[in-house]
């Protein structure tokens, strides 16, 4: 009787009998390598001695973790038949906000706090990567090099996990390959190599407003020596970078979103998306699906967009007015506040640090101004939709549960409606977990795009109370 009450009456995790999956010898060995690598890094960081001597070992221990982790996931997920592998997700403390989730969440958060506000405190660790940094960028490592290396390693190791977990799906394989390619190539190697040849470490896959400084009149963080100073200094490389950032935003973004939806960026190219789709995958089910959360989402993401537009306009105006409006420091204050609240606290600490507690796309859903623009384009000017296959939906709820953006996919599918939502990043996992093959991500003629669903204009009118609700 007690079990019955628990299952029927509450959303609390009910007591279940689960069997601990026994590890195979190879899996144990790979996990041992990860543990050994972590211990090695710790000892190397604490041990006395010159950084140059320790560095080689540091890179070795780091590589051991990456290798052991990747290989472990390869073996662990390769064991079972290709297909959906969500057994025990809600029985596990890690993936259901249990003890381990809190430990991981706090540790990640602490790392971001150290990174943004006490970067020097990470020097015993980042110095260990000096040999790697010297080879790539020509300079010794700093906290940002460490961050880039860890980020890329995470996308790689958990990318192996993602690929093996969904290896029955070529969409997921290619997409996972894509996010790793863009993270490694465009967010790690290329900026590093640019630095080595004394060019600004430009990120070709980030644009205003996700990276607002690329279209600001001046670099308010690094001053005259910063990236933008170099860009605006009149060198041809600098001019190219500005041109690139503007072209990507004004031409490529609307065009690609018209053809493919916002997914071309959010779940194929973007680094934040890349981490969410790999390291964040174990936590995708934690997103809040309530209508209230959707309401908050629409307010908060658009507020962030409005504020960055306003700040950008203000800074340009100040620049044009010969800095008469705000003075030199005044502009910096605006930009630095945005950086502190939105970039550091929101996208970093909350966005990634709270993965195990709030789900993997908290920043993308509630904060990212780039996602807001892409979402607007996707809703109104795109061929992308998720098609519902006639009357096959059985309302089971797998699609909604595993939507990292908290979209109640089922509410559309069970009415036979297509899903055309601005927040959808097109990860395709709803279509994977559907046990009846009801959903398909498609780019197609706009004529039948809203099959069954409300046209955006009608929905907006309903939201404003100008048209009747069902």
């Amino acid at each position: 009787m007690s079990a019955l009450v628990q299952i029927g009456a509450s959303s609390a995790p009910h007591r279940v009998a689960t069997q601990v999956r026994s590890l195979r010898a190879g899996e144990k060995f790979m996990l041992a390598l990860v543990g050994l690598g972590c211990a090695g890094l710790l000892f190397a960081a604490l041990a006395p001695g010159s950084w140059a001597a320790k560095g080689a070992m540091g890179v070795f221990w780091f590589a051991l973790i990456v290798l052991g982790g990747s290989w472990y996931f390869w073996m662990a997920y390769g064991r079972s038949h290709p297909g959906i592998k969500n057994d025990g997700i809600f029985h596990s403390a890690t993936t259901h906000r249990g003890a381990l989730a809190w430990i991981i969440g706090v540790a990640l958060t602490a790392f971001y706090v150290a990174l943004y506000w006490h970067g020097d405190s990470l020097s015993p660790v980042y110095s260990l990567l000096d040999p790697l940094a010297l080879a790539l960028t020509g300079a010794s490592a700093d906290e940002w090099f460490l961050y880039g290396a860890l980020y890329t390693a995470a996308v790689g190791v958990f990318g192996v996990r993602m690929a093996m977990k969904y290896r029955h799906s070529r969409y997921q394989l290619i997409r996972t390959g894509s996010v790793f390619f863009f993270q490694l190539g465009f967010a790690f190697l290329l900026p590093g190599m640019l630095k080595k040849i004394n060019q600004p470490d430009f990120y070709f896959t980030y644009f205003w407003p996700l990276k607002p400084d690329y279209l600001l009149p001046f670099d308010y963080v690094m001053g005259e020596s910063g990236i933008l100073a170099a860009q605006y200094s009149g060198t041809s490389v600098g001019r190219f970078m500005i041109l690139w950032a503007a072209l990507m935003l004004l031409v490529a973004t609307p065009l690609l979103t018209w053809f493919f939806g916002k997914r071309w960026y959010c779940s194929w190219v973007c680094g934040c998306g890349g981490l969410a789709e790999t390291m964040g995958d174990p936590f995708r089910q934690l997103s809040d699906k309530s209508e209230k959360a959707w309401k908050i989402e629409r307010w908060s993401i658009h507020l962030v967009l409005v504020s960055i537009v306003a700040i950008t306009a203000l800074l340009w105006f100040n620049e044009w007015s010969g800095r008469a409006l705000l003075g030199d420091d005044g502009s910096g204050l605006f930009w630095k506040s945005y950086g502190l609240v939105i970039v550091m606290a929101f996208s970093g600490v909350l966005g990634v640090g709270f993965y195990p507690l709030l789900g993997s796309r908290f920043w993308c859903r509630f904060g990212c101004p780039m996602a807001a623009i892409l979402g607007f384009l996707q809703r109104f000017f795109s061929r992308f939709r998720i098609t519902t296959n006639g009357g096959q939906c059985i309302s089971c709820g797998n699609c909604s549960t595993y939507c990292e953006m908290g979209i109640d996919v089922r509410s559309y599918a069970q009415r036979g409606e297509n899903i055309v939502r601005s927040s959808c990043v097109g990860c395709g996992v709803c279509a994977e977990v559907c046990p009846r093959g009801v959903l398909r991500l498609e780019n197609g003629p706009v004529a039948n795009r809203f099959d069954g669903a409300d046209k955006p204009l009608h929905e907006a009118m309903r939201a404003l109370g100008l048209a009747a609700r069902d």
Partner: protein
Amino acid sequence: MHVVIIGNGVAGVTAARHLRKRNSHVRISIISGESEHHWARTALMYIYMGHMQFTDTKPYPDPFWKKNRIELVRGWVSLVETEAKTIRFEGGRTLSYDKLLLATGSRPNRFGWPGEELQRVSGMYSVQDLARLEAASPGLRHAAVIGGGLIGIELAEMLHSRGIRASMLVRESSYFSGVLPDEESQMVNEVILEQGIDLQLSTNLTEILDDGQGQACAIINDKGERIEVGFVGLCAGVSPNVAFLEGSGIEVSTGVVVDSQLRTNTVDVFAIGDCAEIREPGATRGKVTAVWYTGRMMGETVAENLLGGARDYNPGIWFNSAKFFDLEYQVYGEVPAATSKGEEESPASLLWMAPGGRQSVRIVHRNGAVIGFNLMGTRYRHRVCESWIQEQRSVEYVLKHLNDAQFDPEFSRRWTREIQQALEASA
């Protein structure tokens, strides 16, 4: 007017939703003994397997009911008094109605097996069934699944996900051969065996043994073998849940007998979903259909008729789908089962199977017109298949336009040309 709906499954709930959509004044009550809120029992397996929580299976958020002024009443109905237009609950409470809608669903079949009433024996249909399995699961190493249908294989998969060995007793000589054609049925047999399920074909349950404390401890099959198990799942089909209507005057055969407008023999009493038995169903559909979407369709139809309409229930071309472990299955239209072989006028079919893979496409045709699709490991568009069947398209036409029906995820390996070539050659 007060409409009382017995049962909060998809049929009853859909009826309530559409009633409210059409009429904002009618009072609507939904009675359920099983659960406070409507949940998708199609997701029962995913709760046990840890893919979802119970709360995730609810298709509508909890405030939905209040917002739409649909009253939820908890309780088991023991009697319907049609003269007084009153229903009586266990425990004596009563509720009066102006119109009554029976949407009480199914009950797992029990065929009078010795020991079927023991503890640790259960169907796999309701919240209560799930709780029974959960209660039996700690320390459970081996369980028996009785029945080779859609629920049986789901229970086998549930047990398998927790590392519990499942012995699956199937009456037929091949899994689901009462529905699937031979080759597809064989394909599923292979999938079941590959997962390490102890699949016992052509085997029936004889007896469930008592451990001396009223709990099941073993089963004996009709080959005389004894299998030690800590749980027995009865999954040999379901029947309409109508026992409580005895003596009410409402006509019951297998289910509650209704006409094409879902009306029973008793005035102001309607029945829909699994518990309804259509007196004269169309040629391709049975009298009782226990699938999700027919409940939904009947609910939509009956809402109109409860408000005085006269709409016929028309489910259209048959379709269904399922997933056997990792193997997806879809069917549209008429597809003859393996066991129906040798019948007269059995339609011809073209079958393509992926080389070495778990994929197949079967196109069934009669007199040159396509009448059905049976698909394993590939997805086709419902609307396209439906319109081809309705329009009686030729095999040649369908093969030529096969790509229009494709619903597999982007970048999936497409076999269209191979299928077209193979099937054209055999057509």
